[in-house]
């Protein structure tokens, strides 16, 4: 298995409110503080094989209910990497945890830890009972309490071996020779659940942040904390606070016997996860988050508040609409569908769980935005941060959003747990769809899934690895639907069967078209507006003269498009030679400074254009990126246009392009090869051309609403 190297830290769903260092004996340990709830959770790190990011799927949710402290272990993350084995002893980590509590003015806390961290949490609770409200230990490592996992007895860890096969990699000589090789092997063992590529990549990257020497010192050379099984048992027996032990039966690091022993000796409770490995907090985050919250609230009950439950027949009919913010286009189609839905069910109340920029459209339409929307982690900022010059690796950007997705699922789940809805509608609400299939017992309402594309597709230059990973993602989705057909009560494809790409989901997987036809209903395309009836009148209203040849250049609301704007502007002089009446209007959008673009005769640069879709309907030519919404608006209004799919954007390069070809719409351009001359020539050929596009249906919203309304 090849693990792609990630350099930059992914966008977090939640950044710390405070951070700092504690120093003991010259060793600096980095900590972070999240939230200000009255009860604190201290999340211990584990050995320097990882660092505090291992809790990334917990922090955003947990910090909405508790104050959360994390710290990096000495030997990894932003903490120091001291050079002596003594500095890595078990008790040093315990003392670091205590120092973080003191430095943050925390008298007592719920202590949580994984593997080594679970052991350290128990040791802190045993030796400083006043500091421990409870211990939540995932696969706790308590040395000598029980025999180690048999995997660790296969080979000696410190003797040079004549093999690197399997667990022989768990050897200091191999670590020093090929630490990445060890990490890839080790975490593949610890994440044995199928479809764990992202979690494995994360763990490998965090391991590489520390390096082999830290692990050698901490894991092999540091002094033992105690001498015997009796000492280990005595330590556990001293723990007086409530204890919850979580253990996956496929754990390849810590045994069930050890987890059971910890639970028994501490008079704690054991939660057994079946089919789970050593890192359930990463692979089963919704389950672990629920356990953490439940445990925390059992020890420190929240202040009681008034709750209301409404008798079933007294309830108003209500739907929760979750609209993806990636690509503004969904907002208008979702509003259109909601309006049609209200025609069929006039008593229906719709709440929206959405974020900017979708909320801007919803507010303008007078829709009710659920207040919990403010708790959502920002997806569009992440997508923007993942983009480069006319380049957005959309698949990787969504993969690298896993922390944000689980954080936002937890917000969704908190909302629907408190308020019963009759229907959940998710328009490309990836977090809702994915985690409902991963946690099917949480579904408590009818649920409709909407999308305008099916299938993750690899880019050619992504090589074998990208092909492997997209196939794996498709396979998981197909298995989800096959195993839990009851989750999606309706799956609505925004388009027609012919819009589905003819590709395969990947090796040994079905064809996308066949599978989609079997598993989806088709609503036709939903533009969210009525096509313009009288274009001449509209042109007049917008101030476009009869002799003018108007070309609108727009790249959406993000900063990704600045390079395309510059190149199109550079084509203007030559284009004007071909088309003397050319009037070019460049819409810079909120993220691009209009002053940063050069001036030319016949060029107008505007920061913002109200009702842009009306200008697009009136123009003689548009130049756009490869996003579906704008391209389909132009198609519906039968305008000629040039479109430049973003590089590495599989949806724009494959799915959208396929659909536009079916409509016979637009001229696909290539940002790699098409310079100002090619653009000028294309402008001249296309501008004002009569098009013969396949007509775009105008009843898509009504058809989608009808499919949804049957569930109410």
């Amino acid at each position, binding site marked *: 298995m090849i693990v792609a190297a990630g350099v930059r830290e992914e966008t977090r769903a939640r950044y710390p409110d405070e951070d700092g260092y504690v120093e003991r004996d010259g060793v600096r340990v980095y900590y972070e503080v999240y939230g200000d709830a009255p009860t604190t959770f201290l999340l211990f790190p584990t050995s320097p094989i990882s660092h505090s990011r291992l809790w990334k799927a917990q922090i955003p949710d947990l910090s909405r209910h508790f104050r959360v402290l994390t710290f990096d272990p000495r030997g990894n993350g932003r903490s120091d990497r001291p050079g002596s084995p003594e500095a890595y002893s078990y008790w040093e980590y315990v003392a670091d945890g205590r120092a973080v509590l003191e430095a943050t003015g925390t008298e007592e806390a719920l202590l949580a830890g994984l593997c080594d961290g679970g052991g350290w949490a128990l040791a802190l609770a045993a030796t400083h009972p006043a500091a421990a409200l409870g211990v939540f230990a995932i696969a706790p490592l308590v040395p000598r309490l029980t025999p180690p996992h048999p995997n660790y007895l296969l080979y000696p860890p410190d003797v040079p071996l004549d093999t690197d096969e399997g667990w022989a990699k768990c050897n200091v000589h191999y670590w020093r020779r090929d630490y990445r090789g060890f990490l890839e092997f080790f975490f593949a063992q610890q994440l044995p659940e199928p479809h764990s590529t992202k979690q494995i990549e994360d763990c490998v990257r965090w391991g590489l942040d520390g390096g082999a020497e830290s692990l050698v010192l901490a894991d092999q050379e540091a002094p033992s904390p105690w001498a015997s099984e009796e000492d280990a048992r005595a330590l556990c027996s001293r723990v007086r606070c409530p204890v919850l032990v979580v253990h996956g039966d496929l754990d390849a690091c810590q045994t069930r016997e050890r987890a059971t022993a910890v639970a028994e000796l501490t008079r704690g409770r054991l939660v057994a996860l079946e089919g789970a490995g050593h890192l359930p907090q990463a692979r089963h985050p919704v389950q672990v988050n629920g356990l953490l919250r439940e445990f925390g609230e*059992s020890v420190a*009950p929240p202040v*009681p*508040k*008034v*709750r*209301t*439950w*409404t*008798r079933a*027949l*007294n309830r108003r009919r209500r739907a929760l609409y979750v609209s993806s913010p990636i690509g503004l286009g969904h907002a208008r189609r979702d509003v259109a569908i909601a309006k049609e839905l209200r025609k069929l069910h006039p008593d229906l109340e719709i709440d929206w769980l959405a974020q900017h920029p979708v909320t801007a459209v919803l507010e303008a339409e007078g829709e009710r935005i659920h207040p919990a929307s403010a708790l959502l982690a920002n997806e569009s900022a992440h997508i923007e941060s993942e983009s480069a010059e006319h380049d957005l690796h959309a698949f990787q950007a969504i993969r690298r959003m896993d922390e944000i997705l689980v954080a936002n699922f937890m917000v969704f789940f908190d909302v629907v747990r408190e308020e019963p809805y009759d229907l959940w509608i998710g328009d490309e609400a990836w977090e809702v769809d994915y985690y409902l299939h991963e946690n099917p017992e949480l579904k408590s309402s009818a649920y409709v899934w909407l999308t305008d594309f099916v299938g993750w597709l690899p880019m050619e230059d992504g090589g074998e690895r990208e092909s492997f990973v997209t196939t794996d993602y498709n396979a998981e989705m197909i298995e989800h639907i096959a195993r839990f057909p009851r989750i999606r009560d309706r799956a609505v494809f925004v388009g027609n069967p012919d819009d589905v790409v003819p590709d395969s989901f990947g090796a040994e997987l079905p064809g996308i078209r066949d599978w989609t036809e079997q598993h989806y209903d088709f609503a036709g395309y939903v533009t969210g507006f009525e096509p313009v009836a009288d274009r001449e009148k509209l042109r007049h209203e917008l101030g476009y003269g009869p002799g003018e040849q108007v070309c609108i250049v727009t790249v959406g609301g993000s900063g990704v498009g600045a390079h395309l704007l510059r190149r199109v502007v550079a084509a203007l002089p030559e284009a004007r030679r071909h088309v003397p009446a050319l009037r070019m209007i460049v819409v810079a959008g909120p993220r691009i400074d209009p002053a940063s673009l050069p001036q030319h005769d016949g060029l107008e640069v505007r920061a913002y254009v109200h009702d842009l879709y009306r200008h697009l309907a009136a123009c003689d030519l548009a130049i756009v990126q490869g996003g579906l919404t704008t391209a389909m608006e132009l198609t519906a209004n039968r305008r000629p246009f040039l479109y430049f799919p973003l590089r590495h954007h599989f949806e724009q390069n494959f799915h959208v392009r396929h659909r536009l070809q079916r409509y016979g719409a637009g001229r696909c351009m290539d940002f790699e090869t098409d310079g100002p001359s090619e653009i000028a020539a294309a402008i001249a050929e296309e501008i004002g051309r009569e098009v013969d596009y396949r007509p775009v249906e105008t009843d898509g919203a009504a058809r989608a609403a009808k499919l949804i309304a049957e569930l109410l």
Partner: protein
Amino acid sequence: MAVELTAPPPEQTRALYPDESGYVERDGVELHWEVYGSGEPTVFLLPTWSIIHSRHWKMQIPYLARHCRVLTFDGRGNGRSDRPETGYEEQEFAADAITVMDATATERAVLVSLSLGAQRALLLAGEHSERIDGAVFICPAVPLGEPLPERTRYSWEEELDTDEGWAKYNRWYWLRDYPGFLEFFFSQMFTEAHSTKPIEDCVGWGLETTPETLVATQNGILDEGHIRELCRQASCPILVIQGTGDAITGSGRGVALAEETGGELVLLEGSGHGPHVRDPVHVNLLLREFLASLPRRPA
């Protein structure tokens, strides 16, 4: 639509029969108690106004008994307990409850009460706090908050020239047309649509006692000052479950009790005065959740 019951029907098949039952005597009054299930804690389902008896907990007992020990008894004046001519003061019900706890070796318990049962529950939680680990009040009848205006309009004591509506809550009417009163009262208890069966059940249980007995129960209610004092004394965790459509006491009573005790309040939108009967699944889950939230006592 009249219920048309004139005599109590035979008891229906129960979902669960008691593991133990018996009688205990206090001051010459025999009290019938039942124990279901075993383990910790004991949930003590208290009697309410003697217009009905312990069978009104029938939707709770089988479920709760799978998770803990359940203790019930028939309040004096109905069910299998005696119907003395006098002695229906709240203090008597509280003393009966303690006697039943002693007779069943129940050192401590979590109380669940309905309506008037709130008064004896407060006496127990306030004056025997060492034996009470928690208390749930369903639609409590306590003189806190605002009463329903229609219930202050007519005298209970004096003979009236009308039988309309709450004018039926009158001793003369009770003695004249007891089934008529029962049907009226329980139609007010269950304001939810489609409540024929709960109303029939309650009318049947009401027919097991006499209007004379109910008249005798009208003297022993605690006053507001005493209730507030008990609220201050009660130190255990408290949950109040209150229907917003409660036509017997109004929802203000429960809201006020939650405020006065600092307890948790769950409002049931659209529910009447007997949500444990009419929405038993939700109330059962609330009870279980409350039990799970109680601090575990050291073994």
